[in-house]
């Protein structure tokens, strides 16, 4: 069809010097707020909304979109350097990225994140341009049963996230599921585990939990070692990827991009799964799964690509149907409305310059991000040479300010301290925080979709196997369990065999 001419129109808008300038401002701001732990794109976009009043619609929205994917980018920087993820997706990057940094490979880790994100962003932008309307239609066939089955699949596959004891990983997932239940039940309004505090009615804030169990716990752990204050980098080797590194990241980036692009289209929580799913896939496919969690470059390349691809394709339901996939998208809807455009099925026909301009600007934004970030890697890495006694109070302060800025809820700040201590205790017990966060993020979604599916089917559980997409997903989940169990069964049988021999 006239994809070429549409893209041509888009690029004529996106390459307008003023729009390039605002796109650059957007991605720069996004990177900065992404790097400051806790201050996420939601708070930034909310603060900048009034400024965008005076700009033309395309320019304003291009800048705001830039903040969003810029922040995705910046968030992985802190996850890698100081183990402080600002968003659920970056939590996965922190697992191996931070270990790479500790091994002196912060440079290659950051470069991998940048290149993987760029590639994924480019592919996803093309997908968005070519298939947005049909993809959005397809996503609508996902109802509650389908989402439930998808999340079951995600949870089962993601037990691979842990690199120690499976039992401890399961315990952490369950703890995460419990933490996810805090707050008002949306079905009946009954408060759960809120201790009578209305501040907890909305549930625990993801950023508080993530900053606590990852960042603050890590700081506590570092501080216990009085003599070794030069945390992190023992010796920074090279800043750039070796030929071997390139060879290792090619497939993870491709797979991550594919997974992320597909999951990002689903408005009911697909983007949350993307980074977790990609990490699990890489670990399963790796010849050395035991090395994951100790600084595997594949563990950075896959999730970072998946995350960025999903960030881009999550614009599909927004721009074609007017449906926000998550809070930042809801804010973007607000921005559209303030500009006098109501997002929905009509935007593509009534405002083609705007629609295609934003899509084209995403690619421009990705180019700008790479240009901006690659030279910065040296600077970021040098940040690690700041004496720890100066660095850690700064991290704590910024994390507290950032978290507070989201909802102006002081309990979110208390939660950081609480989960910092919990996280430290968990590290001491040899439990890992990643499965906990997975449970925390997916638990509420799992419950919501399960209960909704059951309400709509009027209590009939067969709905999960009679709907084809749901049945397929559950079958895949079963397959994942079988594959996970098979080798150990075989190994046991072999052991038995050996002993008998």
């Amino acid at each position, binding site marked *: 069809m006239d994809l070429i001419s549409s893209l041509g129109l888009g690029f004529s808008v996106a390459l307008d010097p003023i729009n390039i300038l605002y796109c650059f401002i957007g991605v720069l701001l996004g990177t900065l707020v992404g790097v400051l732990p806790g201050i996420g794109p*939601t708070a930034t*976009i*909310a603060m900048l*909304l*009034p400024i965008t*009043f005076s700009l033309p619609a395309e320019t304003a929205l291009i800048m705001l979109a830039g903040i969003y994917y810029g922040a995705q980018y910046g968030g992985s920087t802190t996850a890698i350097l100081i183990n402080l993820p600002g968003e659920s997706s970056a939590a996965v990057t922190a697992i191996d990225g931070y270990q790479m940094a500790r091994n002196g490979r912060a440079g290659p880790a950051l470069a991998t994140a940048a290149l993987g994100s760029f590639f994924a962003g480019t592919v996803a932008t093309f997908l968005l341009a070519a298939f947005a309307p049909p993809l959005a239609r397809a996503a*609508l*066939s*996902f*109802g*509650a049963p389908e989402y439930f089955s998808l999340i079951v699949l995600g949870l089962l596959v993601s037990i691979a996230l842990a690199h120690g004891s499976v039992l401890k990983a399961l315990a952490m997932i369950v703890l995460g599921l419990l933490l996810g239940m805090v707050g*008002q039940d*949306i*079905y*009946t*309004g*009954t*408060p759960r585990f809120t201790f*009578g*505090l*209305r*501040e907890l*009615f*909305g549930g625990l804030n993801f950023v508080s939990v993530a900053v606590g169990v990852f960042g603050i716990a890590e700081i506590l752990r570092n501080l216990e070692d009085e003599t070794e204050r030069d945390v992190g980098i023992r010796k920074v080797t090279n800043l750039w990827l070796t030929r071997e590194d390139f060879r290792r990241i090619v497939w993870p980036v491709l797979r991550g991009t594919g997974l992320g692009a597909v999951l990002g289209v689903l*408005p*009911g929580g697909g983007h949350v799964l993307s980074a977790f799913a990609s990490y699990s896939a890489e670990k399963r496919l790796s010849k050395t799964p035991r090395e994951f969690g100790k600084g595997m470059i594949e563990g950075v390349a896959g999730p970072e690509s998946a995350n960025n691809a999903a960030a881009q394709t999550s614009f599909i*339901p927004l721009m074609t*149907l*007017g*449906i*926000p996939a998550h*809070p930042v998208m*809801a*804010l*973007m*809807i*607000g*921005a559209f*409305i*303030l500009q*006098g455009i*109501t*997002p*929905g*099925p*009509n935007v593509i026909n009534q405002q083609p310059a705007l629609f295609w301009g934003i899509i084209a600007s995403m690619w421009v934004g990705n180019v700008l991000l790479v240009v901006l970030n690659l030279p910065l890697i040296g600077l970021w890495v040098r940040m690690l040479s700041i004496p720890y006694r100066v660095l850690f109070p700064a991290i704590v302060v910024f994390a507290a300010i950032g978290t507070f800025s989201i*909802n*102006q*809820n002081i309990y979110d700040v208390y939660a950081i301290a609480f989960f910092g201590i919990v996280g430290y205790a968990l590290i001491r017990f040899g439990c890992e925080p990643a499965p906990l966060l997975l449970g925390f993020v997916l638990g509420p979604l799992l419950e*919501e979709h399960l209960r*909704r599916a059951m*309400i*709509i089917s*009027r209590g009939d559980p067969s709905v999960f196997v009679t709907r084809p997409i749901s049945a397929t997903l559950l079958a895949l989940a079963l397959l994942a369990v079988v594959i996970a169990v098979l080798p150990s069964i075989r190994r046991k049988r072999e052991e038995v065999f050996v002993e008998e021999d």
Partner: protein
Amino acid sequence: MRKTISTLLAVALAAGAAFSAHGAAAQDYPAQPITIIVPFSAGGPTDTVTRLVAQAMSEDLGQQIVVQNVGGAGGTLGAAQAATAAADGYTLLLHHIGMSTAPALYQSLPYDPQTDFAPIGLVTEVPMTIVARRDFEPETLEDLLAHIRENGENITYANAGVGAASQLCGMLLMDALDTRMTEVPYQGTGPAMTDLLGGQIDMMCDQTTNTTTQIQAGEIKAYAVTTPERIDALPDVPTAAEGGLENFELAIWHGLYAPVGTDPAIVERLSASLQTALATETVAQSFADLGTAPVPADQATPDALAEKLATQTELWAEVVAAAGVTPQ
């Protein structure tokens, strides 16, 4: 907990009283940026309404207005924060119908909507629309009512959880028909709309801010608007009364408040500024795009808002009790 809050409140009241005794404060007002608290997250319909009004009011007052989102607990966290803010006219609250339903829905509300605030004026009354998935059988509102009476709980009705506008509308509808449908709650009407578009659920009742574009695009079916008059954005959609549903009126009204004890001269100034803002072409146009309209100038007054709040609080206490919802 409660005690500290009431102490705080007392301190705030005292501070407010001391401040208003200071005559000069009103004359210089506003001497610094004003904050309007929105008790919902950024990007939602209430936030959008607030930002549009704030922009126009700030031009009139010659001061910057900062919109602060304090979300959570059905809007009661933000309202509580506004109730305890200094009564100097620099912290205001823009809340919707939830202001009047909160006393019926929450047990231990740390503020009283009617006595802890000084009303400034109504802002807009957003109509609701009764909508259904595209391939839902009934063609008209009359068909729909018959269909609901006949099929009752076999019909799935989406709402955005306890206390949400969509839930209130459903309560009223079921109350009027004296029947029950299967209520399916969502985290906000955004995801509910997704499922309605995908045909996963049967019907919903939501604000025009959320439904107008989908109706215009023919993606969903609209049966009625819940206001006495048809609305400009949807001229073909009949009113509930036209379609045979008598006494079914519901609008999501939004009001602007200051903490109680704010200097009456300041409240007067803010009310005048609100009226000016609502009369601007930009606000009228943006509201029209959202399927709503600014209230007339005589409604953007402290008295009109106080009256609205009082009658609505009474109404919802009855409806909520009739629906058998226990306050949390």
